[in-house]
């Protein structure tokens, strides 16, 4: 059987699997945000970087090759991941103290896992809106990290394409498929896969906040490195 070597661990894989899939199956956690086992990888967040042949590549978009030597926990990589995470925090308005998603937020948990203490980059404090027009959900763009999981879920699983990314560069942001730009004008619904896939607090149920007590929240109960390996992805 084909195998790769991640740090000191030898891991078997099926041909065609990406490095992150192979690692996840073997219980090796590679921090990631835009990757999700249910969806096609698209490699935009740049958190799941690993080192192959002296080059940093994203583990979600790189196919595992027999005999590949992969470095995963080097100081350099941790530094890289930390800096990418710092960028995400500096770019948006991530006010963890008052966010309902806190304790169940993948961005927060990945950053804590990677040892990020603060984002030292200049905070951008972008002006972004909250769309509360939908009966059951709010869309808080302040917290969006452009991972496009909702875009992919709505398009590939729900068959609705409710979400998309518009604009480019720093202006690139989540929009919904409605002329008035309001989630309430789309056919988005509670049953959608896109309704539960957001790794941060951007798409959240309405009239519902902080109902899970501290200590019982998703990542309070089970740390991310145990949750986000094969079969446990939220």
């Amino acid at each position: 059987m084909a195998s790769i070597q991640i740090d000191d661990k030898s891991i078997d894989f099926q041909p065609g699997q990406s490095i992150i899939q192979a690692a996840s199956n073997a219980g090796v956690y590679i921090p990631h945000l835009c990757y999700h086992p249910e969806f096609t990888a698209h490699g935009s967040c740049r958190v799941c970087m690993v080192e192959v042949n002296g080059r940093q590549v994203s583990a979600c978009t790189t196919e595992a090759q027999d005999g590949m030597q992969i470095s995963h926990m080097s100081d350099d990589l941790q530094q890289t991941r930390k800096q990418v995470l710092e960028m995400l925090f500096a770019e948006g308005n991530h006010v963890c103290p008052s966010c309902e998603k806190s304790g169940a937020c993948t961005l927060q948990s990945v950053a804590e896992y990677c040892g990020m203490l603060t984002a030292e980059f200049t905070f951008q404090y972008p002006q972004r809106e909250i769309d509360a027009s939908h009966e059951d959900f709010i869309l808080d763009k302040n917290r969006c990290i452009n991972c496009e999981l909702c875009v992919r879920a709505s398009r590939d699983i729900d068959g609705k394409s409710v979400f998309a990314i518009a604009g480019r560069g720093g202006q690139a942001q989540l929009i919904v498929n409605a002329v008035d730009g309001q989630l309430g004008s789309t056919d988005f619904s509670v049953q959608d896969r896109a309704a539960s896939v957001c790794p941060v607090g951007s798409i959240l149920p309405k009239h519902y906040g902080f109902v899970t007590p501290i200590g019982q929240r998703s990542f309070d109960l089970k740390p991310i490195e145990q949750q986000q390996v094969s079969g446990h992805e939220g």
Partner: protein
Amino acid sequence: MGKPDDIQQSEKQTEAIRFIQHTSDHSLLLQCLIKIQEAYLHIPADTVELLQQQLGLSYADINVVVEFYSFLSFEKSGDYQILISNNITDQFLGNQTLFKKLNSRLADVNVSIEYTSCTGLCDQGPAILVNGWAINRVDDERIEHIAELIEQRLPVDQWPSHFFEKEDNILRRDIQLSVECQPGAAIKTAIQQGREQSLETLEAAGLKGRGGAGFSTASKWRFCAQTEAGQRYVVCNADEGEPGTFKDRVLLNQYAHDVFEGMTVCAAVIGATRGLVYLRGEYRYLLPQLQQVLQQRRDDGLLGAHILGEDLAFDIDIHLGAGAYICGEESALIESLEGKRGIPRIRPPFPVVSGYLGQPTVVNNVESFWSVSRIMLLGADWFAGVGTDASKGTRLLSISGDCRDPGIYEFPFGVTVTEILAACGGEQTQAIQMAGAAGTTVLARDFERRMCHEDLATGGSFMVIGRQRNLLDMLANFSNFFTHESCGFCTPCRVGTQLIDDIICCFKQGQGSTSELQQLNDIAKLMQQNSFCGLGSSAPTAFLNALQQSPELFSAHGPLDDNPQFDLTAAVAEYEQLVATLSGDLR
């Protein structure tokens, strides 16, 4: 009062609507939008509805495309839209003064005036686009004329033709520019040689892609030809967006036949029946003449079902871009050809395996195809006889900036910067910027470095920076450019470009500190290593060059402090203003 251009505009509008009504292929979305934008100077809501119906697309599908491209907009910003080219060489030529002058001269008419990325007229700037039409050498006299025409409300396509004349400025010819090719001759050779022999010729010539990445053209074609597929495509990348490059514009203007010839050779070799030219929106004015050339070639049997009477079918369409530097990246270009946002694709698979519409596709630069036509005629030895071991032949350089004779120069690979400067009359040169904003800064002490893949690789841009310039201005121009042109897909590039722009701005105002310098270094390295595509990984090159080679740039205002220079006075200005205006009268 009726506007004289109303009728004219509405004819265009009718034409655009008619075009959409006859279109059902959603990969033509971008082309439809470009036509609408041209006719209405924005994208009206009812045309979006029509597009949705015709192309079977959702509102969001269309919205994201409009929001992606600089030249498309839902809002109409004026009856005339003036875009001022903002390459650093345009800045050298006074485009900021031009901006002020245009604003004051045209203050009373409904005109929007903004900056845009390099328009490819650096050897004859400052340049502007008026409703998409490029005008070079905008001096006081031209400003006055333009103002009068606008005041008369004359549609831009009825302006005197001399406004739109461009100079080719070919100032040095080497082996390639000194030959004339008979249309059809290269195709004939290729057919005679057959696929394998043609590939061997190209291989022996050592032709590498002229876009800048330097991948072997023969290998690319071979991969494509070897991939099983129902259809293959030849794509010519004429999205010449790298600041300071304009040689493709000249080739398309003067050597369009040879470029199409090269594409046809490619089609013959890889077995493609369809070719596409992706022409940057800034070169839109070349479209009619290019269409003419294509028609002539069809008439001459050089395109169509039986080229040269042989069993070779191939034709070429031209797609326009709409203001997006990222579309010069081949996978983003393919996305754009498919009518979508120009977001780079995950590679592998490479376009040669899965490109346009998922089929094997060769994407080559204008100059590459142009060279192909010559190599097929004159042979591999002719071409490989000049250049260096790893960089065969010659290439075209677009030279601009602080030199006596900006223009197009053909040089063999291996030429030194000193030799290039001598040729173009670059004196008192502080530095040159090789390969555009994403390229390498070479300081005077390194002018013996050579242009070739082994040393200074280039996509053809060569900008000369005189002693009188502040390199920080150039860095600020570049950081601004990348902030505007990052597609926003991956984190390092989307956020990094903004952060770098802030930091450079800070140093320009003399307010940087050691922590900003450290951050600049961290961000640049992160982008270089970790970006999703070449735009992100090459964007920080100039900043890293500056950090390594000329750190003194950042401490021009004195030794750097460890503490940031927080500007308290500026930060309390709003409060003081508020107190001054509000507290008094409300008491």
